[in-house]
């Protein structure tokens, strides 16, 4: 329907590679549609650019259903855009108006070097996980369900923390570029479950050290991370990480 056409001006960060200097480039998209997802809108723009033999905009994406954590766009100054508890791939153009100017930037942090345009390298989060975000258990046949009794409340809470998709929005939105919510969620999740017990103290110490080594900033309790988290993880995770650390100090 022609009445549903949206004209958008997109101000997009373009950067050839990590070593190059980036800049903003303006693109006018005459026929966006409110039913498009944000990424479909970018696909649509890229198709046009390719038809015109111009270089498309590079952006990260995979599942497009809000569970993989690949999409990482700073949209009008907010990580994942204006709709809370929504990853950029699940954000729809109906949240914007015809004639809008939309600024799209990559996550900005020393620990997330830019690969190209809007794509950043988030291996730093993987290295934090490798430092302790695992449990050492036998992985042969699946154990019987409910063989280990876990309180319903703890199981639910652990599940809430486990919903972290590792997208890095918490880092991107944090005024200090801290990875405390990501790291806190992983630590809180294991701290609530008996399977996390054997490595409990080592885990928090090593993951916090790794976070430091990667060059993330300090947490100043702005709680901006919670507000932009696409799965709504609470800064309670950060408080729990601090309690875990204090617990590890007790020896």
């Amino acid at each position: 329907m022609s009445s549903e056409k949206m004209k958008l001006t997109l101000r997009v960060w373009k950067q050839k590679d990590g070593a190059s200097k980036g800049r903003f480039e303006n693109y006018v998209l005459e026929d966006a549609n409110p039913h498009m997802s944000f990424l479909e809108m970018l696909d649509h723009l890229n198709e046009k650019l390719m038809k015109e033999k111009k270089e498309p905009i590079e952006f990260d994406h995979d599942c497009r259903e809000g569970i993989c954590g690949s999409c990482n766009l700073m949209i009008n100054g907010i990580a994942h855009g204006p709709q809370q508890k929504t990853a950029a791939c699940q954000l729809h153009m109906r949240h914007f108006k015809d004639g809008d100017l939309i600024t799209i930037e990559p996550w900005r942090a020393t620990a997330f070097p830019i690969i190209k345009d809007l794509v950043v390298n988030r291996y730093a989060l993987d290295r934090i996980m490798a430092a302790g975000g695992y449990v050492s258990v036998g992985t042969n046949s699946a154990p019987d369900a409910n063989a280990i009794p876990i309180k319903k409340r703890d199981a639910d809470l652990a599940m809430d923390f486990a919903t972290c998709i590792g997208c890095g929005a918490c880092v991107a939105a944090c005024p200090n570029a801290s990875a405390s919510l990501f790291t806190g969620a992983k630590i809180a999740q294991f701290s609530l479950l008996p399977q996390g017990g054997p490595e409990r103290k080592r885990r928090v110490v090593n993951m916090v050290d790794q976070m430091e080594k990667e060059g993330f900033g300090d947490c100043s309790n702005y709680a901006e991370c919670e507000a932009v988290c696409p799965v709504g993880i609470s800064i309670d995770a950060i408080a729990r990480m601090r309690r875990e650390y204090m617990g590890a100090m007790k020896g």
Partner: protein
Amino acid sequence: MPSLLHALQTTIGRKILTGITGIFLTLFLVVHLAGNFSLFSSNPEAFNAYTEFLHSLGTLLYLVEIILVIVFLLHAYIGISIWLRKRKARPENYSVYKTSGEPSRQTIASRTMAITGVVILVFTIVHLFTFKWGPGIAEGYVTYIDGQEVRDLKRLVNDIFQNEFYVIGYTAVMILIGFHLRHGIWSSMQSLGAMSPKLSPVIYTIGGLIALALAVGFLFVPIWIYITGGV
């Protein structure tokens, strides 16, 4: 298990130290304010008697003062280092940046902690020169309590706050302290891990009320003295 020295240098340790020192400094403000209000006591010499009592403590007072200085400087040092670290963690800022809104606690108060902190640091030095190391018995600020000659700090307070520049300056700094505490009190609790999703909004509100009470309490004295001409 990491050594205590290592732990204190991690991001967790820095926040715990900031929180503990912050709580200590807030408690100091409460005691300080209580002392200020002795200016309004029905006993006209209550304030001078209180300052005289503090000085009579001798070594104990020095000990408390040394602890206060260490705590204050440690708090300032960590705060500034956190601010410097942030510049390293994100050297290139966003061209457009906005808060996503609730449940974010990103406010003017939280975003200006470094600025308000530095203002408080400078103010504290000026404040000590004005009163602690200001004119005393030798300059004629003398009164007698039970026949004993003591410093008339009350008269100095009354004299200083006849000057509108002091009154305006003090009022402005007290408002900034209010802002610093608005984020600081709540933040210290979160830094010490004393938080849960249910408790968080309650502590945030209480933190705001304590900040407001302290700021208003402190700025009340200079304004009252200026308007009434002295207590």
